């Protein structure tokens, strides 16, 4: 029995959902309301001491860390394999999967909070808001969140995030120029799954121009990703439709501001 504790718009959780669907594994969904602080409940912290999503529970064993969960699923359910058979290609896949976690996860919040999550958090009552803030154990993260919530894209963290995101898109385009159809190796792998949620995020925010304008290989890759049977159930069906609609409408309004940040930095 597989149970995934996750949240629709968490990029780390999305990556695991993609792997589950690529392998056509049946799994049970348990949403953790991370914008309401449910991840800080003691029963969840007992499963996931870092209080983050996702957590996979497989036959009573809790597996944490999205990159580790993906490899675990590939270890246990080997077919179809999502790691390159060539071991050097596999090492490149691991570097991609790990770099995405290390460098892009926080950055993603930096472009999403100003456009959307911020409006969700601002809907909370003063007590709920305080509870949300109090739940954060990482004080630096909390300070960053507060700036993003209060100042939107004009927060220095948000501008930084936009530029890092832009470099990431360039890196993806360059990698596809080297590797061909998929990011690492000859077939779809965990590296492709790891990168997908970052494109979906831009897509949902209606920031498509960001990659379509300059990056033909990435555009082509994303079209092929969207055509895979895993895409819809893992990335779209799980999102509440109102959330999707809000994200699109709000995002459209912010794209000119984002493009302006890119222009100011000479990246557009």
């Amino acid at each position, binding site marked *: 029995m597989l149970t995934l504790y996750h949240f629709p718009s968490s990029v780390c959780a999305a990556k695991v959902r993609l792997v589950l669907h690529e392998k056509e594994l049946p799994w049970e969904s348990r949403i953790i309301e991370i914008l309401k602080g449910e991840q800080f409940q003691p029963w969840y912290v007992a499963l996931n*001491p*870092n*209080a*983050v999503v996702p957590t996979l529970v*497989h036959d009573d*064993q809790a*597996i*944490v*860390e999205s*990159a*580790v*969960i993906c*490899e*675990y699923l590939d*270890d*246990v359910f080997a077919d179809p394999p999502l790691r390159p058979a060539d*071991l*050097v290609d*596999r*090492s490149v896949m*691991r*570097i991609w999967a*790990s770099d995405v976690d*290390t460098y892009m996860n926080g950055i993603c919040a930096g472009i999403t909070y100003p456009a959307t999550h911020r409006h969700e958090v601002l809907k909370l009552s003063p007590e709920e808001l305080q509870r949300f803030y109090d739940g954060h*154990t*990482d004080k630096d993260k909390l300070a960053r969140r507060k700036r993003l919530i209060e100042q939107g894209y004009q927060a220095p963290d948000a501008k930084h995030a936009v530029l890092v995101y832009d470099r990431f898109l360039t890196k993806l385009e360059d990698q596809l120029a080297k590797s061909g159809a998929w990011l690492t190796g000859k077939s779809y792998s965990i590296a492709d799954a790891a990168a997908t949620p970052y494109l979906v995020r831009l897509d949902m925010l209606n920031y498509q121009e960001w990659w379509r304008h300059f990056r033909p290989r990435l555009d082509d890759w994303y079209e092929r990703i969207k055509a895979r049977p895993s895409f819809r159930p893992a990335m779209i069906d799980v999102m509440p439709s109102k959330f999707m609609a809000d994200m699109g409408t709000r995002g459209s309004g912010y794209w000119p501001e984002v493009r302006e940040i890119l222009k100011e930095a000479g990246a557009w």
Partner: protein
Amino acid sequence: MLTLYHHPASPSSAKVRFVLQEKEIPWESAIVDLYQGEQFSAAYLAINEAAVVPTLVHNGRPVRESLVICEYLEEAFPEGPLAPADLALRARMRVWCKDIETFMSVSLAGTIFPANDRHELAKLAPEQLNAYFEHHPNKRLAERKRAWMAEGYASPDARRAVLTYHKFLQKMELQLGRSEWLVGDSLSLADVETAPYVAVLELLQFQRWWVGRLPHVERWYSGIKARPAFQRAHLNIVPDQLRRDMAKRGAEIWPEVEAIIATAEPFNGKSPWAMRAEAL
């Protein structure tokens, strides 16, 4: 044919050497002189654009990142396994290794650099030193290194690194009270990844950090040191001059480190697995 590009005093190089020695894989050694900035040479950048050691070249193809190299060796040379057969345990091993990569490699730099590396860099001529910082591909780390050179442990950043290191040793203590090795009852990549982080403290004569204070860490590290593979991979490979220099520099500066440790909040001891939530 395996060639390892590495440095004798680099903990991430030591991890890979430890795996090579445990598995008794023959390999050729190519030392990259980090203190002379050899990692920024065009030849090295061609195999490792991040300009860090180690790089393993296997039949002409480079493999980068110490943890990824260790997993590569585990899969390419499965004999003498260093990953648990139990897959859930293997996942735990990967979480531990990942925590070390994410939190400890940064803290290691901030803990070691003020004690040792800054004295090595201080030997460079001013224009060589400038070149070192200019070639550094990681601008933020270069800035931090400049601060560590100028201020040593007075830099808030170095202080934070020492406190994170301290927390990490206590987490090890907690975990090693539950299992003989860091993950399960045999040596795994989790131990391989961790051992050099303790060994480098010993080179600096910082043993008082755990000896007589953290009995499980003490027991575990004695077990590590007793392994011939670790002796060949780490203990015997450090040049005598560097060993003497590190011991002398470390002994002199230990009181500063101890003073920082004394300011640490009492360890809450909840979980060895909450590094992300609790790293400073």
